[in-house]
């Protein structure tokens, strides 16, 4: 049996072709709309801790996606796409993102869905997203030498942090998240 390809780069993964991107994006938008997360009140409802649709969708996607992606990765079929952990910018950026999310009522992906759904106010948010990206680009050089240096842990995964083998971690974590989902459904059936 081939060793798990944790370090080797499997050459088998596909290439980012645009028609595939179009089909996947279409499916993503379709699913988000059917899941109700293109709706302002569903997203704000989650942030008010009243409507738990967003958490249910995200946790289910994480469990299903994690099991599949790590299985495919084990057999050398896909590359992982790990982002570096920079504690300072993850925390500050995360908090700013959350505040903006609550103000707009859509996030970047659901704003696109909301626009397709005929919620034209998503356009204001999308304009803001373009402006905000520009502001970040203007400051990117100085952020790189300041905030982004704080707590730079590099490419690190949860199993590395707890020093547990990846396969074991995935199985245990998938079970834990599934139990969490059952608890969530029990506590908030709507």
């Amino acid at each position: 049996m081939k060793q798990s390809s944790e370090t080797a780069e499997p050459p088998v993964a596909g290439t980012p072709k645009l028609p595939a991107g179009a089909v996947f994006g279409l499916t993503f938008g379709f699913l988000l709309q059917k899941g109700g997360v293109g709706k302002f009140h569903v997203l704000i409802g989650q942030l008010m801790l009243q409507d738990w649709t967003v958490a249910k969708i995200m946790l289910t996607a994480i469990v299903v996606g994690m099991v599949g992606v790590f299985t495919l990765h084990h057999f050398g079929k896909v590359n992982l796409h790990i982002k570096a952990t920079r504690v300072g910018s993850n925390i500050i950026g995360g908090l700013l993102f959350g505040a903006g999310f609550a103000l707009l009522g859509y996030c970047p992906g659901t704003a696109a869905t909301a626009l397709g759904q005929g919620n034209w106010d998503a356009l204001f948010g999308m304009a803001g997203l373009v402006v905000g990206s520009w502001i970040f680009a203007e400051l990117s050089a100085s952020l790189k030498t300041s905030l982004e240096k704080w707590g730079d842990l590099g490419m690190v995964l949860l199993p590395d942090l707890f020093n547990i083998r990846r396969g074991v971690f995935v199985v245990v974590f998938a079970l834990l998240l599934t139990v969490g989902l059952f608890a969530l459904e029990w506590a908030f059936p709507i």
Partner: protein
Amino acid sequence: MRTKMSVLLGWIAVLQVDSAFAAGNVVNPLDYPGPAWSPYVVGAGIGFLSWLTFSLSDKPIGASTFYAQVSGFIGRLLAKRHTESLAYFKENPPHFGWEFVFVLSTIVGGAVAALTGGEFANEWIPPMWEARFVDSITLRATVGICGGILMAFGARLAGGCTSGHGISGTMQLNVASWISVACFFIGGIAVAMMLYSF
């Protein structure tokens, strides 16, 4: 000291805007129509979609990069030399690629789902917003643009958004993503509670 003062003043301004525009109406997000499909079906679908994007396109699902690329395109149009001198665009030259097509198609996907499900909204102000605040498109536009700006800046700093970190990063057990998502919700819940819960 000066920064502390300005933070405080900003905070007061936010509170005043809040109390000035809140008509005092209590809103309940559950009074409005919920999702068409079960969240578990949709979640599993997105998880499965990730298997496909990873194996067929070698890409995780993500949305926020699209907006950075649009800003790069506009920047190159208006000030080419300056745009190309910025560190972020040097590392991530804007191009019409997979992420770009993906988000454009997300708009279409949302439209197809809404039209086929009889859920096409065709409205400028969400009903719950209107019930809570005054019926003013200017206010909605201002708050929406500010929200978008904060969100994009935050996403670029954190390295992703609710899709890139919240779904794709967390499923890869990326530490950065779990920290970021926790902070998305901490920040989001704090501000949403301030705006809607009292």
